[in-house]
């Protein structure tokens, strides 16, 4: 499967374009928030992909430590990079959504807090590999960090939920409102958007992985 063939690029592109069309033309406009609510269709799918790819990093880390096959490290690095891209978009879209809806750019609501911490862990994962002395050491260290970081995610989420239950100064956030008030067509578009971004993520992942392999060959 030659990822460089334009076929896959076009396929992914079509899926995404269809998604944009759905969001802008067909998605019902919500009464209270208006068009801004449609940011949901970017924010949630990217959150899902971010979390999925963090799981990929965990799998890659565990498998590298067991098999020592360097290709798992390529997989982990690729998943990590795309995860950073995705989580960045999630955080930024979340902030842009929050501003018109609540009046603030940021709030320490559990999902946002967990994603910010996850973002920091991703970045640390990439940095540790980058600053290691050689490829092998980088792979091992990053894998160790990858395992620890992933285990930390549910713990961070639980702690954030308790934190906000104790100090409920902020409203629980648009995510909760949006989950509750979804109509059938909104739900469908949301699912399709999630599918579209997952396809995009996988496409980038495979491409990045193959570029990694090429890069290493040329060393």
């Amino acid at each position, binding site marked *: 499967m030659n990822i*460089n063939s334009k076929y896959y690029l076009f396929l992914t592109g079509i899926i995404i374009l269809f998604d*944009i069309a759905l969001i802008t033309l067909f998605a019902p406009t919500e009464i209270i928030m*208006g*068009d*801004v609510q*449609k*940011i949901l269709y*970017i*924010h949630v799918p*990217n959150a899902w992909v971010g979390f999925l790819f963090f799981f990929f990093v965990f799998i890659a880390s565990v498998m590298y430590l067991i098999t020592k096959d360097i290709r798992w490290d390529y997989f982990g690095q690729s998943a990590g*990079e*795309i995860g950073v*891209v995705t989580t*960045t*978009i999630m955080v*930024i*879209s979340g902030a*842009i*959504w929050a*501003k*018109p809806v609540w009046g603030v750019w940021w709030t320490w609501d559990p999902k946002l807090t967990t994603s910010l911490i996850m973002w920091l862990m991703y970045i640390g994962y990439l940095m540790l590999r980058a600053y290691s002395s050689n490829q092998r050491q980088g792979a091992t260290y990053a894998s160790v960090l990858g395992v620890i970081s992933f285990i930390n995610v549910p713990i961070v989420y639980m702690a954030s939920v308790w934190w906000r239950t104790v100090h409920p100064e902020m409203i629980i956030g648009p995510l909760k409102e949006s989950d509750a008030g979804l109509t059938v067509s909104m739900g469908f578009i949301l699912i399709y958007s999630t599918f579209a971004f997952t396809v*995009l993520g996988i496409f*980038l992942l495979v*491409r*990045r992985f193959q*570029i990694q392999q*090429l*890069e290493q*060959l*040329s060393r």
Partner: protein
Amino acid sequence: MNYLFAVFAITWVVYFGYLFVINRKIDDVKEYLDIEKAN
């Protein structure tokens, strides 16, 4: 409406930016292989 547009813009700039950056690496490798071939 502006907010939605901003999110779309940022999303696609970031994704395309990433795609662009990683494609540049292919060019680096191609260059390197061409030099290798020439030798």
